[in-house]
């Protein structure tokens, strides 16, 4: 399980969320272990059973107006009890504030309190997006990730088989590179998103040449930051014994982070233009998504033809017989 420190959340999002820390800086040592948020209205009302204390606590206008309506001593007791839980932190929206002694207790219990001028709903949506992304299951796959006609294609295969060279050729044909060599795959609400593992830019190693900067060389239209993963293409040396797909009636799939991804085992041999085949794979996939499966159409037509011919032949038999 991944852990997000409050400090990291603050450092990365303070500008976007316009966060201000109102407690002591040392309170930021807390960690966040879940992507869910909680509005602790009921806890402040005294119902602390099943209190989701491990989540970030959001105090909106409703909570603040309730807190402010409470008797000072009662609020003091309640908040002391609430703060006795290991809460990652409070965030107050709409630029509101809490009574000062709440801040003292928070300081004491080492629980951070932030404020943001953003509206509660908008802020919670944005924060959820960030947390979802941070806590999303992810893995890194050795391969090259390209966008071909809007389809995210992950090229895999042994080192030196020519993934980078293939991607280079595709970029030259007007397609876009997401990343070369190591692809970070994230599961974002049922879809897989691939991106680079770092923020250095779109570099690539070409054997015998060294590193090249694809963005600098081919321009901004040749690259993109992330893309949904649609198909995996495994490049492999041609082997006579391997049982390659001939008609495409059977759909092979691999499991990536629990999602099924179509995979194509593509045999390559010298003189074979792999990039053109990758384009064809992408277009064929688009056609299939639109409901047109060439191999099914062809074999259906063949079957109809066979039936018709068989009928005529068997009728002729009977006449003769």
């Amino acid at each position, binding site marked *: 399980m991944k852990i997000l420190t409050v400090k990291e959340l603050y450092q990365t999002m303070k500008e976007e969320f316009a966060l201000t820390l109102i407690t002591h800086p040392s309170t930021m040592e807390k960690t966040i272990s879940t992507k869910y948020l909680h509005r602790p209205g009921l806890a402040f009302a005294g119902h602390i059973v099943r209190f989701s204390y491990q989540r970030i606590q959001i105090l909106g206008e409703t909570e603040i107006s309730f807190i402010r309506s409470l008797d000072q001593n009662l609020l003091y007791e309640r908040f002391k009890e609430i703060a006795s839980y290991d809460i990652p932190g409070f965030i107050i929206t709409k630029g509101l504030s809490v009574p000062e002694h709440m801040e003292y207790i928070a300081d004491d219990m080492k629980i951070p309190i932030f404020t943001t001028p953003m509206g509660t709903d908008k802020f919670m949506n944005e924060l959820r997006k960030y947390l979802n992304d941070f806590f999303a299951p992810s893995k890194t796959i050795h391969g090259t990730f390209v966008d071909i006609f809007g389809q995210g294609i992950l090229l895999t295969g042994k080192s030196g088989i020519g993934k980078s060279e293939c991607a280079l050729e595709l970029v030259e044909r007007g397609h876009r590179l997401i990343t070369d060599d190591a692809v970070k795959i994230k599961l974002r609400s049922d879809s897989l998103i691939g991106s680079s593992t770092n923020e250095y830019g779109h570099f690539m190693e070409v054997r015998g040449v060294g590193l090249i900067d694809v963005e600098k060389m081919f321009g901004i239209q040749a690259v993109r930051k992330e893309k949904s993963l649609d198909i995996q293409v495994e490049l492999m040396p041609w082997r*006579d014994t391997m*049982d390659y797909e*001939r*008609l495409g*009636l059977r759909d092979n799939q691999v499991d990536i982070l629990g999602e099924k991804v179509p995979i194509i085992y593509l045999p390559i041999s010298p003189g074979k233009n792999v990039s053109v085949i990758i384009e064809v794979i992408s277009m064929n996939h688009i056609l299939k998504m639109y409901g047109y499966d060439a*191999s099914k159409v*062809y*074999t259906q037509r*063949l*079957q109809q*033809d*066979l*039936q018709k*011919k*068989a009928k005529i*032949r*068997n009728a002729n*038999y009977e006449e003769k017989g």
Partner: protein
Amino acid sequence: MIRRKVQIKNELGIHARPATMIVKTATKYRSDLRIIKDDMEINGKSIMGVMTLAAEHNSELELVADGIDEQYLMDELTELFETKFGEE
């Protein structure tokens, strides 16, 4: 070189599945395979070729195997036709 005539005994004829079986068998061997139907002659290692024959039930094909392992290829192929490709 060996030539042999076979008849299509399965009711559906040489549709996608039997065509795939023929091609997979043929590509296992080094010998060349030609298949002749009426005035058509195709390469037995090509899936599109075999399907192009559109060989229906009860039609007749001529198999021509040529190469060092032609006998084995021919025997295995004949067996496929005899057993109706595992179909009706």
